[in-house]
């Protein structure tokens, strides 16, 4: 029985964070720091005829003002890593020179002695704009409309068809076909900490250090080295505490490169801390798809095919992964069902808006929403219970690895087990009876289900734009502490705790003896970062295997210390002992008696640990010290005690589960109240149930936000109307229902620990359950679908009209 893995270990990160003792970018104060403010476009689409910075340059405290002309030849474009055939990639400069294409696009930058002086001087820059017609609606943009880029001749960035099977034939031969237009509205990720950058250049050493609130320190370093044109090994990226990312910091932003470059110009540290208004207008948005579903089915509920024609609202420029997000939607269109023919036709469309990119789930919530809404439509069309339609189309556990018509192999799953557990928890039968009775009384109760599957542990390098592996170094210091360097970049997920749990169990040390270091490119070996629910399944596996390597090394040294052969050495609970060879072969009571622990740190520094003489064996700390002093290690062996492993996964992992939402809609007001929320998630082997619960809860809350509250709104001129948290509604604590959470555990065969990932499950699984419940509540009015965010006003109108 593992001492830590599988236990509800409290996050070791939390004491510092809840006491306000953590260090975020803005908490890092360097002497002589200058502060930066950005002038951003107030037009969605305009030509810049002239920029006059003379007054701003002479304002009090102002050190420098830069415009696009100053940097165009010296800082490279903002990169897009998504490679799609015939993709149009506009030249996205860090400052606009003569053409602005969205509200919030940086045009000029002021550097001043404090942030207020910088902000005030922004108002003194005079820009002569010539306004151009803007295109905002994605379908209108796809058809023609005003052009974001004249030179392209249309607003189509790319077109892509994905899927297998003869969809035409499948739909034609089906008993019925349900169809629906659906909208995945644009969302703002709203990390609690906005973006922030601090850059410091040492002209003597020619070293540039960039502190940035990012999810991908190493990828950022590589991209910034290219953008700024400096050797990557002179560039250091540090991510201190990061207050949430949700994908919005899985990116390379203009501001990050610019600050680095400015620091090099001025030879002083420069800092920029994003305001919430900047965050909503100029940090990537999520979702933004308008699509048309057609699902074929037979009268017995068998699904025969799915077609999804979708317009993806890319915004005006590609950020790092913008055009690739809808491809993830295409991959997951089979959901948890056997669908013989699937086709997705994507049209990626430029609009005069901020770019969309990865937001918690990144393309997969869209897929799950499409499939789950379609299945509900099938059930409504056939007059079947939604549970029965789902059950009918699940692949059986024996069918795994399960091949989908989207070209994936689902690693492992038992969808029915999770469904049954959730149905039992919610007492589904009674719920339906209660609903029936309530309807007779005129009350509107709705039950919604989502039996989702998602794709995690991104991913094999073949399927990724820039490497899908992850790295870890594990070492034991001379005084016995265990240090883990992970290439993942946790920013709220709690891997300082869960990775320490893995190491503590595997090395038989106390949890407190393990320190997890991440997010500093000068300390940690190259890594990929934290996104796509990958840190534990890929990064954690790298830690696990690095520990195995380290133990192998340690075993050899321990054997040498005990003057025996490595094959005779047993490692258990932190101690190497000589195998009692005869007892072991005799079988009975073979377990060597554990001896009382020698406390860590008892051996005086520099002293040689006593070679094993008394049968107690040696601790792994003894071995670490011996390995560092290296006076007596096996001949030809490597001193020190550390191991590094770069883990390349062979497949993605596919967590799944069932979410059930029960709501009551108020007939008088349209107000939506939750009666129950049940979630059974299967994320494979669980390392820390408390962390998993936290991830699931947070995900459900964000899904709830999309289902009922959140929506980025641009007016028809491209002005951002939801520019503050007074206008953009994220869920508050009082809006969140109690959640009954449980799990099933189907290990993944893809990695030795059997873990799958859970960071995005809630956001992916919950949205269709909530929407399904509200639609179900309104079904007496003939409602089969409602677009998000579903507001009481919409429901009130439907109810009032019927009365």
């Amino acid at each position, binding site marked *: 029985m593992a001492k830590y893995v599988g236990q509800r270990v409290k996050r070791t990160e939390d004491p510092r964070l809840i006491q306000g003792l953590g260090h975020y970018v803005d908490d890092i104060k360097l002497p002589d720091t200058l502060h930066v403010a950005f002038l951003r476009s*107030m037009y969605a689409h305009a030509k810049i005829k002239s920029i006059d910075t003379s007054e701003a340059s002479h304002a009090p405290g102002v050190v420098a003002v830069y415009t696009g002309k100053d940097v165009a030849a010296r800082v490279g474009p903002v990169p897009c890593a998504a490679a799609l055939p015939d993709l149009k990639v506009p030249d996205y400069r860090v400052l606009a020179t003569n053409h602005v294409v969205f509200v919030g696009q940086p045009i000029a930058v002021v550097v001043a002695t404090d942030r207020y002086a910088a902000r005030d001087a922004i108002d003194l820059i005079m820009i002569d704009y010539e306004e151009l017609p803007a295109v905002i609606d994605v379908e209108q943009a796809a058809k023609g409309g005003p052009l974001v880029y004249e030179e392209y001749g249309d607003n189509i960035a790319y077109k892509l068809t994905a899927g297998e099977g003869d969809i035409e034939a499948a739909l034609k031969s089906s008993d019925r076909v349900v169809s629906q237009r659906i909208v995945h509205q644009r969302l703002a990720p709203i990390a609690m900490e906005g973006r922030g950058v601090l850059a410091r250049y040492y002209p003597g050493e020619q070293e540039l250090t960039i502190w940035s609130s990012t999810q991908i320190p190493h990828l950022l370093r590589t991209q910034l080295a290219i953008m700024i044109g400096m050797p990557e090994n002179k560039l250091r990226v540090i991510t201190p505490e990061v207050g949430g990312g949700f994908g919005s910091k899985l990116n390379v932003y203009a501001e990050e490169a610019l600050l680095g470059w400015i620091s090099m110009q001025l030879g002083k540290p420069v800092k920029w801390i994003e305001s919430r*208004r900047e965050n909503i207008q100029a940090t990537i948005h999520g979702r933004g798809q308008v699509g048309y579903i057609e699902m074929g089915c037979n009268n017995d509920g068998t699904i025969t095919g799915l077609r999804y024609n979708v317009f993806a609202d890319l915004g005006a420029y590609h950020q790092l992964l913008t055009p690739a997000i809808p491809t993830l939607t295409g991959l997951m269109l089979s959901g948890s069902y056997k669908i013989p023919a699937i086709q997705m036709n994507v049209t990626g469309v430029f609009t005069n808006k901020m770019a969309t990119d990865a937001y918690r789930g990144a393309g997969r919530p869209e897929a799950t929403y499409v499939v789950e809404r379609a299945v509900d439509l099938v059930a409504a069309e056939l007059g079947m219970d939604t549970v029965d339609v789902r059950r009918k189309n699940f692949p059986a556990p024996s069918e795994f690895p399960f091949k989908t018509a989207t070209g994936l192999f689902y690693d492992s799953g038992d969808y029915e087990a999770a469904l049954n557990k959730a149905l039992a928890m919610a007492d589904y039968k009674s719920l339906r009876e209660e609903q029936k009775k309530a309807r007779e009384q005129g009350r509107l109760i709705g039950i919604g289900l989502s039996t989702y599957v998602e794709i995690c542990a991104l991913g094999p390098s073949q399927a990724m734009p820039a490497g899908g592996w992850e790295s870890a170094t594990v070492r034991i210091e001379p005084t016995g502490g265990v240090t883990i360097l992970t290439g993942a970049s946790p920013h709220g997920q709690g891997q300082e705790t869960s990775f320490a749990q893995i190491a503590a169990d595997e090395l038989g040390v106390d949890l407190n003896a393990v320190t997890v270091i991440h997010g500093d490119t000068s300390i940690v070996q190259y890594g990929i970062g934290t996104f796509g629910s990958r840190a534990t399944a890929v990064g954690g596996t790298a830690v696990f295997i690095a520990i195995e390597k380290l133990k192998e090394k340690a075993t050899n040294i321990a054997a040498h210390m005990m003057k025996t052969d490595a094959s005779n050495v047993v490692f258990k609970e932190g101690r190497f002992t000589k195998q009692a060879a005869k007892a072991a072969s005799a079988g009975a009571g073979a377990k060597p008696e554990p001896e009382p622990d020698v406390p860590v740190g008892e051996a005086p520094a520099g002293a040689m640990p006593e070679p094993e003489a008394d049968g107690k064996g040696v601790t792994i700390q003894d071995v670490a010290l011996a390995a560092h002093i290296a006076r007596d290690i096996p001949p030809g062996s490597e001193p020190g005690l550390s191991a590094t492993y770069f883990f390349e996964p062979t497949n993605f992992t596919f967590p799944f589960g069932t979410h059930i939402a029960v709501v009551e809609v108020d007939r008088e007001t349209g107000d939506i109240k939750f009666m129950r929320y049940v979630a059974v998630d299967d994320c494979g082997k669980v390392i820390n149930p408390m962390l998993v619960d936290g991830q699931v809860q947070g995900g459900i809350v964000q899904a709830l936000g999309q289902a009922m509250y959140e929506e980025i709104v641009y007016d028809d001129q491209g002005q951002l109307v*939801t520019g503050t948290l*007074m206008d953009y509604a994220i869920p508050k604590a009082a809006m969140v229902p109690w959640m009954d959470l449980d799990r099933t555990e189907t290990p993944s065969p893809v990695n030795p620990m059997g873990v799958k990932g859970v960071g995005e499950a809630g956001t992916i699984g919950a949205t269709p359950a909530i929407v399904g419940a509200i639609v179900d509540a309104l079904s007496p009015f003939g409602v089969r679908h409602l677009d998000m965010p579903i507001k009481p006003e919409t429901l009130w109108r439907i109810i009032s009209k019927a009365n």
Partner: protein
Amino acid sequence: MKIEGTHEVHVAPERVYATLIDPIVLQRCIPGCERLEKTGENAYSTTLRAGVGSIKGLFTGNVRLEDMQPPRHFRMIVDGKGQPGFLKGAGDLNFEERNGVTIVSYKGDVQIGGTIASVGQRMLQGAVKMMATQFFTAIEAEAKTVAHEPPPKHGFFRTALRWLSGLLRR
């Protein structure tokens, strides 16, 4: 954004109309107006300190009057920009006499951009109504002033008092 409203001004339409196209009077009556210069026939350039909530700043812009039909109608075209954003729009003003009172009705479409759009939009209707009330209350005081008398003084408190006493009178 559509804006629409009506105001009662207790002066004859001819007098209201004349007041509304007098740049000197206008400068005194428009809340936050720091400068109003005639640049041509029925065209003015102006500097205005205005804002909504915390979003305040200096706007410069042009105002043009068209379709002049004294004393019943004119159309106003506005175009301005400043640090908090820009606005442009056009609207119709109609003047109708009813029992010795002029009913001023305005209806227009205004497009706003920049910070003022992303922060202030939801408060803008209210702000416009408040400014219109201030403006027409001041216009009424101006229109009532007999020739050669010193012009009335305006400002937030005087206007508020006039507006309140106007309400009581009704």
